[in-house]
């Protein structure tokens, strides 16, 4: 038996002897996978609107009715004073205020042009933007209807009309969980893998067992592989559990092949675990190792393309995400699970990840020093 076999045996025993960790590895992903996707709903449907109506005319009433009967808006306040509406914005009860000035209707008839004011709480940019967009299109539709009802018929199609139809591929019902569940699974295995491996070697440093190891003729590669392989297997097990949950709870079955995902996951885990071990060889104690791995995790997660779109980031940040393994995996998941992409489609991310895995692990072996 090679020394590696003994190292593996020892690492496995240590992992399975710690009930807390087993719980964390197997139960945590299940709970999080069930809970978190429900929270992750960006879809803007309940936009809270406060309306300030100073006109009180049949037209203003009709416009208000059109808005409130749409699916997007919920009327939370109706008043004649802007200040009252503003209070609703301050305490977050309303997201936007629509003000219909007095003379709204009379100007529309008399001067053929009138105005409404829209004030949006823009701290959360996306909500602000979408809210304003929806509202404008509702007003536009209202406007068209109004025009048709007023203008004399017979001049039909005098103005050019472009009709747009839109279709949403891969997820026609715009189901958010299809997108979030695989993404959260990626985050979970990244967190578990990176943290477990990051504190592993450094823990041996802290309790002193590393010295006993260093005084043996153990090969550095064997030592690193001995740390890597058990977590690698665990990671693949967690992914399997994750897919089981995704299927049982959300009915998510990848359009593409599981094999493609597992192939990528296998390489991905090598890169992530290698990174953890690298942190572990540099850190002096577990605290340091955890701080660094949390720091990296936050960057990986927030810049991984799950929560915010990478395309919208500034140039330099997009460049940074090219070194973010999470971004690659989330993208691959999205393609294979929802679009049915095959190996050929994801060749590039596979090669890049392979490159990461090799460089990082080679570096980890180099930076692990048996002699100070």
């Amino acid at each position, binding site marked *: 038996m090679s020394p590696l076999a003994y190292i593996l045996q020892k690492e496995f025993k240590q992992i399975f002897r*710690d009930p807390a960790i087993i719980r964390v590895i197997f139960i945590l992903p299940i709970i999080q996978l069930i809970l978190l996707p429900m929270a992750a709903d960006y879809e803007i449907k309940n936009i809270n609107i406060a309306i300030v109506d100073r006109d009180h005319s049949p037209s203003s009433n009709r416009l208000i009715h059109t808005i409130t009967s749409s699916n997007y808006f919920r009327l939370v306040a109706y008043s004649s004073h802007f200040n009252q509406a503003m209070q609703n914005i301050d305490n977050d009860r309303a997201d936007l205020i629509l003000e219909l000035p007095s003379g709204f209707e009379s100007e529309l008839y008399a001067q053929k042009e009138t105005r409404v004011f829209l004030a949006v709480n823009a701290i959360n940019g996306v909500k602000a933007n979408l809210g304003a967009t929806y509202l404008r299109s509702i007003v536009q539709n209202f406007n068209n209807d109004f025009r048709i009802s007023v203008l004399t018929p017979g001049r039909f199609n005098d103005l050019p009309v472009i009709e747009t139809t839109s279709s949403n591929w891969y997820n026609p019902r715009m189901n958010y969980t299809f997108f979030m569940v695989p993404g959260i699974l990626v985050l979970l295995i990244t967190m578990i893998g990176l943290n477990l491996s990051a504190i592993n070697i450094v823990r041996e440093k802290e309790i002193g067992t590393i010295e006993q190891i260093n005084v*043996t003729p*153990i090969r550095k590669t064997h030592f690193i592989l001995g740390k890597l392989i058990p977590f690698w297997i665990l990671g693949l097990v967690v992914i399997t559990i994750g897919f089981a949950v995704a299927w049982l709870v959300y009915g998510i079955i990848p359009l593409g092949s599981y094999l493609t995902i597992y192939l990528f996951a296998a390489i991905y885990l090598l890169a992530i675990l290698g990174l953890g071990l690298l942190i572990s060889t540099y850190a002096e104690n577990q605290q340091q190792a955890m701080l660094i791995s949390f720091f990296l995790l936050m960057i990986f997660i927030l810049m991984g393309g799950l929560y915010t779109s990478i395309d919208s980031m500034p140039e330099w940040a997009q460049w940074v995400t090219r070194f973010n393994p999470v971004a690659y995996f989330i993208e691959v998941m999205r393609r294979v699970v929802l679009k049915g992409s095959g190996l050929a489609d994801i060749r590039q991310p596979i090669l890049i990840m392979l490159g990461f895995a090799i460089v990082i692990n080679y570096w980890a072996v180099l930076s692990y020093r048996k002699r100070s």
Partner: protein
Amino acid sequence: MNSKAIIVENLTKIFNGFTAVDGISFEVEKGEIFGFLGANGAGKTTAMKMLCGLSMPTSGSAMVAGFDVYKENESIKKNIGYMSQKFSLYEDLTIKENIRFYAGIYGIRPELITSKTTLLLEQLTLEKEANLLVKQLPLGWKQKLAFSVAIFHDPQIVFLDEPTGGVDPITRRDFWNMIYDAAAKGITVFVTTHYMDEAEYCDRVSIMVDGQIDALDTPGNLKSSFQAGSMDEVFLQIARKAKRSE
């Protein structure tokens, strides 16, 4: 073949301008029990770590088991055993698992591991406890086990860094019996200690002060040349000169 187990010349280690070990030279014969004494902070552990290949010397030369500490430190490791100050077996593994693990890394054949393990557990009278986690053992047992693991692969030399710290006198006696047994099998023993009665058990003793070796001889010769009744007195006379302490 050389009859020396360890040859050290002018070995020096400097950490960030601090000279922990300052040009020490000595030789250790094969099969000898060599006591390596010194006050806390005298540089004993640093010197020992250089010999074990755990720490890179700044200058000087050293041959351990016939290998150069600079270039052949991995070959040295095959031929030595080491037991550090800090208890360093895995507390979350059982006695048997610890033995098996370390034996495995040294590349001992599986059949041999099994038979030797049975023998060892018998000698230590730990057969019943074989599947107990190490953390459940009392300290004295842990130390004995650590020593047994350190010499399980029959090394030429074993390095012991304060192996009997914190154990009771009876266990210390047992422990020294184990050391004698090992020496009788031809293993060179290199041991640091705080206990001066233990120094008396050594074949030869060196005493380090401020990174240098101030005295090196058999306990008997040291006592007579310092006109002291015990090693304790010898040590006090030498150690008093120390400028640095912990």
